[in-house]
Structures are given as structure tokens and as C-alpha cells.
């Protein structure tokens, strides 16, 4: 009986070690690195956790290295601020007065179409009839462009700021892409209205 107990204890130790070993094998942790200094960037990498200063204080809130641009700065390139407000009046103004900066040679449905398919068609449908995948599942029902009283200006305003339950797409599409998509939406509406 005494010997049996000893054997049991041995088995338990082995079992515990096995379990420990197996749980270490779980993929919840990243693997070892060999000389990680060569792996790590000196400057901050995208989404990296920010360091603390010498005294151990947080430098950035939540240790978040990602920062918003300083107020009043604009990105490089052909960026133009959008001066119409995110209000009902702004919407009406855009609807009445805002015109596309793209002339007929610059409008490229080969650019706008695929972008529309990625960002809009999931709800609005490939042809803009309001029958996207999410609409078919009754999750988000945007209605058809044919039913909507929209102009190129109001489309751009809506992409920029969102409208009702639709959110803003200003951070997923840049200015020229937004206009290309707006032109494509206007084309879809024209096709639906035929």
C-alpha cells in the first residue's frame, strides 16, 4: 500500500509536468526570440506600446503610441479641407451647391466601382438597389438609391460625415477616392432611375 502511494505520487508529478508542458504549448503567447534587439525598432513602430519616462511616468495616455494629428495640421499632398458643416443646413447646402471637382476625363468608374464594392455594396447592394448582404439579412436596410433624393454634393457630404445611421467614411477613403465613389453612386442612381 505504501509503495503504491509512492507510485501514485510519481505519476501525479509526471502528470502535472505534462499538463504544464502542454499548456505552455498553447498558442496564446508569442514564441521565444533569439537576440530580440535585432527585431525591435529603435523608433516607435505602428501600434507599439509607448515607453514610460525615466521616472516611470506615462508619457502618453493609455501608453498609446498612436497619436492624433496636432490641431490645425493637414496631411501632405493634394489635401483640401472640407468646409461644409456636418449639420442639416450643411447637408442642404452641399446638396444644392457642391459640385464634383472631377471633370469627365477624371471620372473613372474603374476606380470608383471596386471601392464602392468594398465600402458601400455590403449594405447598399452592388447596383445600389439597397439589397446588399447585410440588407438581405435584415441587419441594415439602407433602401434603394432610386428612392432617395440625392445629388453628387449630398452623396459626397454623406460619405464625408455619414447620415442618420450611416457612419462617416472619411477615414477609409481619401478625397479623390470619395469623389470617385460619389460619381459612381450618382451613376448607379442614374441607372436605377432609367
Amino acid at each position, binding site marked *: 500500500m505504501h509503495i503504491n502511494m509512492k507510485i501514485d505520487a510519481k505519476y501525479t508529478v509526471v502528470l502535472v509536468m505534462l499538463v504544464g508542458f502542454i499548456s505552455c504549448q498553447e*498558442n496564446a503567447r508569442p514564441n521565444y526570440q533569439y537576440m530580440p534587439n*535585432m527585431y525591435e525598432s529603435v523608433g516607435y513602430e505602428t501600434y507599439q506600446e509607448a515607453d514610460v519616462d525615466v521616472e516611470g511616468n506615462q508619457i502618453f495616455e*493609455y501608453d498609446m503610441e498612436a497619436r492624433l494629428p496636432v490641431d490645425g495640421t493637414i496631411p501632405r499632398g493634394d489635401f483640401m479641407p472640407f468646409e461644409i458643416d456636418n449639420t442639416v443646413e450643411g447637408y442642404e447646402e452641399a446638396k444644392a451647391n457642391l459640385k464634383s471637382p472631377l471633370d469627365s476625363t477624371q471620372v473613372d468608374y474603374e476606380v470608383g466601382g471596386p471601392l464602392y464594392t468594398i465600402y458601400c455594396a455590403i449594405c447598399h447592394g452592388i447596383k445600389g438597389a439597397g439589397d446588399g448582404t447585410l440588407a438581405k439579412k435584415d441587419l441594415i436596410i439602407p433602401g434603394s438609391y432610386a428612392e432617395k433624393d440625392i445629388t453628387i454634393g449630398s452623396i459626397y457630404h454623406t460619405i464625408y460625415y455619414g447620415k442618420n445611421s450611416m*457612419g462617416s*467614411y472619411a477615414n477609409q477613403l481619401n478625397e479623390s477616392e470619395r469623389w470617385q465613389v460619389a460619381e459612381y453612386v450618382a451613376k448607379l442612381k442614374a441607372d436605377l432611375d432609367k
Partner: protein
Amino acid sequence: MKKSYQSLEDNSTNNMKQVIYRNLTSKILYLGFILLLTFSTSLTAQEGDPVNGKALYRTNCASCHKLDSRMTGPALRNVETRLAEEEGLDREWINAWIKNSAGLIRSGDPYAVKIYAEYNQTAMTAFPQLSNQDISDILAYTAEPKPEPVVAEVPTGVQGGGGDGLSSDIMLAALALLFALLAGALVLVNRTLKRFADEKGIEVPVKEKGTPIWKAFVQNQFLVLVTVIFFLLASAYFVYGFFMQVGIDQGYEPVQPIHYSHRIHAGENGIDCKYCHSSARVSKHSGIPSLNVCMNCHKSIAQVGDETQAEGISEYGVDYNAQIQKLYKAVGWDATTQQYTGETSPVKWIRIHNLPDFAYFNHSQHVSVAGVECQTCHGPVEEMEVMYQYAPLTMGWCINCHRETNINVKDNEYYTKIHEELSKKYGVEQLTAAQMGGLECGKCHY
């Protein structure tokens, strides 16, 4: 006050009623006929066709209204009875509101003004094209009782194990029992045979002890040498294998702060990868979407379907609705008022794919220029309940793909000339990425 909205009404039923009290002329008869028509339509209108109403509701109302919860506009289940009981407003008010809500607000109708203010002064689109019949169809649809939620069959006893797991457990138990029985039978047979032998006086020959096998082994030097070489080679193999996997995170599958299911989003709902990871098109990084991208849809989707919820609990042990609530908390969204509170807390996602600092990789080069599918490197993400690193992301893996992949020259003027010259030089029809310089050290290491 009541008159103000009646005057907005297109329907001139009241005027016609006044007409009836006049003397009968042929003209009045004619008008009476019309009155009869309107009356008969309004009779059927009382009933309304919920099927047609549902179609109308979907095209006209559903982008801002839900039946059972607040969205851009108020919830609409039983709106007619609720308005009648709580506000004393009748069908005529509803008609006037739907056809021209702005006019009703301007006329100073108190409830119209109140609801306009309550919903952040978002003007409801006017629907003059809807007839009274259409409106009663829609109202009939909204008056339908709420469908009973499908009672989710959540297994209470066995957690995690689905139907398959249970049956395989039973199979295993049955097999174990069978083996135990067989072993028992063998022991019994052996014992019986021995007893027979004893009774009949047959001597069971006992083997004589020779040299023990380990002694024989030690004495045979050649065998010892071979074994030692074998063990050395085998251990070298394992040591090599261990060192080669250092720093490789293939299969890395951390637990994220919000259980986000790529299977549901990219798989079941078919949302394009680039919808959320939009910067993969245009920048070095394929960014983690900021929470406003989540809210593009989750402003409207506060709950998953009952089936999905039941599946999440039984298959993956995850309460999907609680995950959406985590999102709302992080982004500071109050679902009851449909407004942002401003109290946000960032979600600390755990980064999975990370190349060492000495290797340069650019997403837009691969996604937009080469047109490589995301799945080529990231695997069947649309089937992953929990995201993990699919590819080893080693240099050998990169180079292998560069050697095997033809470059995409179609509609790409940038490559036309160089492709023509290089393909002549190499004497091939199609250049691989490697032949275009995809193996040069400085392309990725500088």
C-alpha cells in the same frame, strides 16, 4: 391646432362631407360617387395588408426605424395604438406626419415639435408619394406581434463539447470497455488452460535464463556504435528543429480583449477585408480599424441573431452580445439614447503579425499593385473564429512565394516596358517576382 394638420391633408374627405348637405345636383352626385370610392378605400384601408406593408416598410422606413428599438428614429412596433393611447393622436395625424413631417412641425403641433426635439432635430424625410392605403399597410405591418424568440438550446451539462464530441466520447468509452472485456477473457482462458495442464500433469517447460539482452548488447561493440550514431543524429535533428522555430510565431493565437469573430464578419456576412483594413490598400501597414469603423454597422446592429448567439455559446463559449456591449463601452455609445457619451477607453488589441525591424514589408505593394489575395498570406481568415498567424512569415517563405508568383502586368503601365525587356533577357513569357528583383537583399533589408 387640430385643424392645422387637417389643412395639410391632401385627402379632402371633410370637404366632401360638407358637399353632401347641399342640394342634389348632378355635380354633387358625381362628387358623391367619389366620396363613396374614398369611403370604400378607407374601409379596406382600416385593415391594411401587412405583407405589402413589410415591403414598403423595408424600402421607406427601415433605414431609420427599427421595430423594437430606437435607431435614428423611434421604434415603430404598435406605433398606431401607442400614439392613440399615450398621446391621443389618430390615423390622420400619422398620415400628416408621414407625408410632411416638417410642415407639421412648422404648424406648431406640440407632439410633432416634441419628437423633433427628442431626436436631435433630425428631420424625417417627407413621403408624399405614400398613399393612405400604403400607410395603413405599413401600420398593419408594425402592428404585427413580435415574433417569439427562438429558444436557444444551450446545453447545460456538457460545456464546449458539441454533438460530435459527445458521440466520440461514447465511442471511446465503448471501445475501452470492449478491450477490458477482451483482456479479462484472455486472463480467464490462460488460467483455465493452466488448471487443465496441472490436472493432467503436463509440465509446462520453463525457459532457461541465458545472457540478459542488455549484456549481449554491451558486448556487441558494432551495435553500440550504430546506436550511438543513431541517437546523435536523432538528437541533432530535434535540436535543429528547435532552433529553427525560435522567433517564428506561426499559429500564434492570442486572446483579444474583445472576442471579434472573423468567421461571422468576413465569412458569413462577406464583408471585404479592406472594408475594415482599409489602409492595406494605400500604406505600409494594414491598419487595425478604429472603432468608428465598427460603429458604421454596429450603430444599427446592437445584437446578433438568436441562432448566432446560441451557436456562439455552445460552440465557442462566447456571448457575442456581450462583446458588442464591450465595443459600445469602449467607444462610448449609449444604445438607449443612440448618442455618443464621450467617455471612451481604447481597446488594447494584441498584435499578431509582426515582422522584425530589419525586414521591410509593404502591404499596398502586395495588395494594390500585385493584387495578392489577403488569404494568400493570412490563410482562411473568413473561417477563423479566433484570428491566428497562418504563415510562418520567415524569409524562406517570402522568397519562395517571390520565386513562384508571376507578376501582374495586366493594366499596369508601370511594368510594361521593364517586363518586355526583362522577359526577353530571361527568355520567358511571364516574369516571376524574383526575376523582377524580388530576391535582391536591398529590396527588404536596408
